[in-house]
């Protein structure tokens, strides 16, 4: 396995020394994110998220399958994470690294277990036919804070996604092509976002948001907090690392909430823009024109 | 690997307050022999220390002292915020002048220069062997640090490097001395004395060593020859400081041989030839059945001592051995009865501590 390129002693010391003096290498504030950008693809359900030099692509897709035997009324929802050598030479195909496992667990806990997607609404015929929704997460470029970027991409992709419309008439299930009927959005309950704090110093007294890859390599510990804008914690993961004062963690959670609200607003705005863009002289315009009459 | 999970003790509310609990535990643990011993131990505890402190057991995270006059030794660290000396292991406090250290109740062996150790070769490299001595790292034994056959003063040659396996191969046991330590804790061994070298004609037991806790302790003599009972002849015992023990049939030491042959005015080169032929032999000599039995008995004593939490040193082992011989005679089996496990072991330990 190719080894991760380790930062030199000079870099390690300097980053810590600068942090002690309230300085980050890229001149950001401690609780400031790098510029977050989101672009939707032409297809429904493709979200391309860039956070500084970190870039994550998520694509949602759906197909009709047979449900699991023990959950006949629930649709299937999966998140597949792939860290390929494209993101960093230290990643290998086919052999999940610890990072990859932890990211996929976090996404799973944040989005799937928190019930963001109403899986019951994916059921078509109880025990026989359900929608299986899958999100594939591809990390295209890795410059730290993969988790926040990936989570944002997954939620954006799912919110943007439209699955084909279906109808049930006298026991016959029809799945319509997009040409026949406008695809429908998923039944979405709430939008959780991850906010990752990185801790530095012997006692974890310095807390940074959105650490770059260099900073991540030097950090003493991290804590990922997932929240939605209603102030519900979906998941907290501080998996070891330097112990941090409990009070600091509470403050971090509160700051995370404001960040999540910003994310939420940003995503809503982007989604609205996208709808407008798709709408140009489209179906919606026609329909509204008809209504006017 | 034996699993000994004893039945849980009588349910006692774990969430009781600390005061209650320490009272509880006091009577709890000292129920067998602790109660009567308690009086013998001077209760020096000051008011702010808990009852446990009279045994001077410290546990990780416990502040030993915040007095700046002390220096921290092994098993302690200095707290960054308060500059107090804090214990980092569970063990007993020792002090050397102004140096405070904590000897752990048990730990892996940490080599020190001059230690006599028994080790096992695990890897043969181009110019050295890697030896497992039970420490956190493998020790190394350079080719230049052994006695080469054909004269102790001979220089090492390339031929020796090529036939390095003929001296020691993987799995061989040896007794050696720690010659040098690296800053990272790695040890370098040497066997440049006739009392060191390859081990044969005996049996190996591993107990815990000088890292802390029971088992072998550093003492005046780590190696001795003892007369065995039941006509077995003399036996050699090597107590490696690292907790590895070797018990073998006594063979005339090369030094003795040297002395003998010298008196017989044989040429010295001739003698060394004869020494070297046996020095790196991996072939056992013929060992009589009585000798084997007594070797096994000593091994039984060693394990019984360890199982019952007693230290292993010359005094304990010799006394334990005699006790074991007695016990065997008293039991029905006679000299052939060498079993010292279970109750027998406890009996033996009781007899030893009772004195």
């Amino acid at each position, binding site marked *: 396995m190719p080894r991760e390129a380790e930062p030199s002693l000079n870099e390690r010391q300097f980053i810590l020394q600068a942090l002690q003096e309230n300085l980050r290498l890229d001149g950001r504030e401690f609780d400031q994110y790098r510029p977050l950008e989101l672009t939707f693809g032409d297809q429904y359900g493709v979200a391309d998220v860039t956070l500084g030099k970190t870039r994550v692509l998520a694509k949602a897709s759906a197909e009709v399958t047979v449900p699991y035997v023990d959950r006949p009324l629930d649709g299937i929802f999966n998140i597949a994470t792939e860290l390929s050598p494209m993101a960093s030479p230290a990643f290998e195909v086919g052999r999940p690294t610890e990072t990859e496992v932890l990211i996929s667990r976090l996404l799973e806990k944040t989005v799937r277990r928190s019930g963001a997607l109403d899986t019951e609404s994916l059921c078509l015929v109880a025990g026989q036919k359900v929608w299986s929704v899958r999100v594939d997460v591809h990390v295209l470029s890795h410059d730290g804070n993969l988790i926040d970027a990936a989570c944002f991409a997954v939620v954006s992709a799912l919110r943007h996604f439209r699955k084909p419309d279906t109808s049930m008439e006298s026991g016959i299930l029809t799945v319509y092509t997009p040409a026949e009927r406008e695809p429908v959005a998923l039944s979405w309950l709430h939008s959780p976002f991850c906010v990752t704090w990185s801790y530095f110093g012997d006692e974890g007294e310095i807390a940074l948001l959105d650490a770059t890859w260099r900073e991540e390599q030097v950090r003493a510990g991290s804590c990922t907090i997932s929240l939605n804008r209603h*102030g519900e914690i979906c998941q907290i993961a501080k998996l*070891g690392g330097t112990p941090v004062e409990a009070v600091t963690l509470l403050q971090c959670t509160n700051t995370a909430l404001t960040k999540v609200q910003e994310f939420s607003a940003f995503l809503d705005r982007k989604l609205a823009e996208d709808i407008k863009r798709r709408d140009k002289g489209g179906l919606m315009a026609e329909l509204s024109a008809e209504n006017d009459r | 690997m034996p699993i*000994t999970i004893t039945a849980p003790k009588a349910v006692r509310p*774990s969430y009781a307050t600390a005061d209650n609990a320490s009272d509880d535990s006091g009577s709890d643990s000292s129920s067998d022999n602790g109660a009567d011993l308690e009086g013998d131990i001077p209760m020096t505890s000051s008011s702010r220390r808990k009852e446990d402190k009279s045994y001077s057991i410290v*546990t990780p995270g416990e502040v030993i002292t915040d007095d700046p006059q002390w220096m921290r030794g092994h098993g302690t660290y200095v707290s960054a915020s308060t500059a107090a000396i804090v214990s980092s292991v569970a063990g007993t406090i020792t002090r050397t002048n102004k140096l405070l250290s904590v000897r752990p109740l*048990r730990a892996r062996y940490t080599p020190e220069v001059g230690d006599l150790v028994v080790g096992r070769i695990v890897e043969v490299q181009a110019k050295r062997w890697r030896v497992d001595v039970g420490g956190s790292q*493998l020790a190394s034994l350079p080719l230049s640090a052994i006695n080469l056959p054909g004269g102790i003063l001979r220089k090492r040659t390339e031929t020796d490097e090529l036939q390095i396996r003929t001296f020691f191969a993987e799995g061989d046991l040896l007794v050696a001395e720690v010659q040098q330590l690296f800053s990272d804790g790695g040890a370098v061994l040497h066997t440049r004395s006739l009392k060191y070298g390859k081990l044969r004609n005996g049996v190996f037991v591993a107990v815990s060593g000088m890292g802390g806790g*029971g088992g072998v302790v550093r003492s005046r003599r780590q190696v001795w020859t003892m007369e065995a009972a039941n006509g077995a002849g003399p036996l050699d015992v090597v107590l490696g400081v690292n907790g590895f023990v070797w018990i073998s049939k006594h063979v005339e030491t090369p030094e003795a041989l040297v002395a003998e042959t010298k008196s017989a005015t044989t040429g010295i080169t001739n003698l060394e030839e004869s020494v070297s032929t046996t020095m790196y032999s991996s072939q056992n000599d013929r060992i009589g059945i009585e000798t084997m039995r007594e070797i096994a008995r000593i091994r039984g004593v060693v394990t019984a001592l360890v199982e019952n939490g007693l230290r292993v040193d010359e005094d304990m082992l010799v006394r334990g051995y005699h006790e074991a011989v007695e016990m065997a005679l008293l039991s029905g089996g006679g000299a052939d009865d060498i079993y010292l496990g279970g109750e027998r072991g406890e009996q033996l330990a009781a007899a030893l501590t009772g004195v």
Partner: protein
Amino acid sequence: MPLDTSAYSLALLRVDGRRWNELRRIHAQIRTQAAADGSSYLEMGHTKVMCVVTGPSEPGPRRGTTGGAAAGASKAAAEVAVSVVVAGFSSVDRKKRGRGDKRNLELQSTISNALAASLHTHLFPHSVIQVSLHVLSQDGSLLAALINAATLACVDAGIPMTDYVVACTAGSTSTYAAGDESADPLLDLNHQEEQELPGLTVATLGETDRVAVLVCESRVQVGRLEGMLAVGVDGCKQVREILDRVVREKGKRMVLEGTVVKGEGLEDMDLD
């Protein structure tokens, strides 16, 4: 909802009869396995785990463990390699979890990182501390029990550490949606409570308020966090007390038996 929470509001007693701030019975032993460098057995209620620590020792061939995965031979500090084996019979539904199970990997990595932050690994370069944990029975608070058992085994193995890493769980009687301010925090959740109520696992460094591990896997109002965290941290202090007593008793017995030379008290030294 099988868990009847209505009883709680009446008698303030939980399903197993505990009050909100009570731990379950914790029983712990150290040095359970003679052949290991360090070992422990720990029960938190009906959650039972065993731990064996080998090392620090030279890294050998290993499998099924996670730790600093990119560790090379030239590491300046010891690597803490943790493996967790969940026995198939440990829970009600006899489900076998494979080695590659992501939840298991996450557990291992969490324990490894938590221990590594407290253990003085820099004292043992080029070596590995192998921690093997076996889950014999599960009744909630699994991660907490694993961390406690691993800490005890490391203490038994005589590996220097800053302080015990102790863990317990905390929960809340509120459901995630309800913003009821009257919800009580609960200490040390059992399996049933873990299934039904929001909860978190918290591990602290000894008696301090410094949190090494904080894992929350259920939806809960942000306002509930503070209460739960406070109860959890307090529970950790209680757990530390209990674990410390176990270690002290073992040490005391060793002193009495003469295995360990009695330490020199500091009392007489205070004079000079």
